[in-house]
């Protein structure tokens, strides 16, 4: 994937995310997502499922954002990216999370999940997710 494609993809996700936030506001829900350029939480505390994050961890850009709509996003309600590539994830009935990289252990937050995936990847790139 070229740098241009990566940038385009992130931008599209951000737009999509903006739409999600707008919908949540319209519905009277508490919107925790970002509407502008993503920033890391100032307090450094681990994120809950509804928060967004965008930071560098072990040299990799990791992002997380609430999602709604099609496919598995509708189930998990959240999406995480590593260097712009989506990490397939799923929410368990008890509120914990798993990913395709660490499928057989659960994580309490998307940020813990994506950091564990970065550790497991050891510098490797995620394969593109099939639609």
């Amino acid at each position, binding site marked *: 994937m070229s740098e241009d494609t990566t940038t385009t993809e992130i931008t599209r996700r951000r737009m999509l995310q903006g739409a999600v936030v707008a919908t949540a506001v319209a519905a009277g829900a508490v919107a925790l997502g970002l509407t502008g350029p993503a920033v890391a939480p100032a307090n450094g505390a681990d994120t809950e499922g509804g928060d967004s994050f965008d930071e560098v961890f072990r040299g990799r850009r990791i992002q997380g954002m609430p999602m709604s709509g099609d496919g598995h996003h509708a*189930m998990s309600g959240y999406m995480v990216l590593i260097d712009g590539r989506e990490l397939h994830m799923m929410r*368990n009935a*008890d509120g914990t999370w798993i990913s*395709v*990289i*660490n499928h*057989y252990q659960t994580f309490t937050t998307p940020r813990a999940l994506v950091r564990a995936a970065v550790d497991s990847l050891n510098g490797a790139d995620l*394969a593109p997710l099939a639609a």
Partner: protein
Amino acid sequence: MAVRKSQSTLTPAEKRAFVNAVLELKRRGAYDAFVSTHNDFIMSDTDSTERTGHRSPSFLPWHRSFLLRFERALQEIDATVTLPYWDWTTDRTPNSSLWGADFLGGDGTGTGGRVATGPFAQGSGNWTLTVRPDSRNYLIRRLGQGGQDLPTRADVDAVLAIATYDAAPFNSASAGFRNSLEGWAGVNVHNRVHVWVGGTMSTGMSPNDPVFWMHHCMIDRLWAAWQSRHPGQGYQPVRSTRNVVALNDTMKPWKDVTPADLLDHTKFYTYDNAY
């Protein structure tokens, strides 16, 4: 009748026959189709939608059928081969003969965990991963580094003592034997073995590591052990239930077999020793 044996009792010739059949299946391209099938279900089986291969009652019959199809594919190459099982309550260390260079090869090396010995090392020229979650095309293991120990005999006995097969909501939050065995709740047996092996076995494409089949053969053996301990209990749900496979529903992707068809494994094979 085919007899599935403990991997620890296989002769050198039996190990060679198993390894060679697996390598030939890989060479023909059929092995990777099994990896794809597994991952398709890993990705689509969720707690709130249709679920068949995992986190649901049909975890056990689905994998029994999956293993049978794999075993039959091996037997088309070498009719003498059966799936060995890995009893991790007794073979518990990276020094086990299971991980020998004449069998599955050893632990991963270096920080990357790349397997460098045995027939499934990518450097052997016969084992390049094509269906995979990331850019690494080689087998990875991190034996015992995942922070979870292999199940003990006491862990297994505790799970086998649970009388109910499965219970609503028939997902990762269920009480019952199936979910405790699978590992999302209670005593975790199945999941933590994937974590103990680590690397490729931790991913949705875990069948890329041939130890996957030996691990699931052990899980299959434990299902039979549970049945013998609870003759009055059976597969649940019996009646049609939203999003899960009931006793007489056919299972995707094959749509030619039901859990009821698979309850008696002795129609297909036996184990050398009951657990």
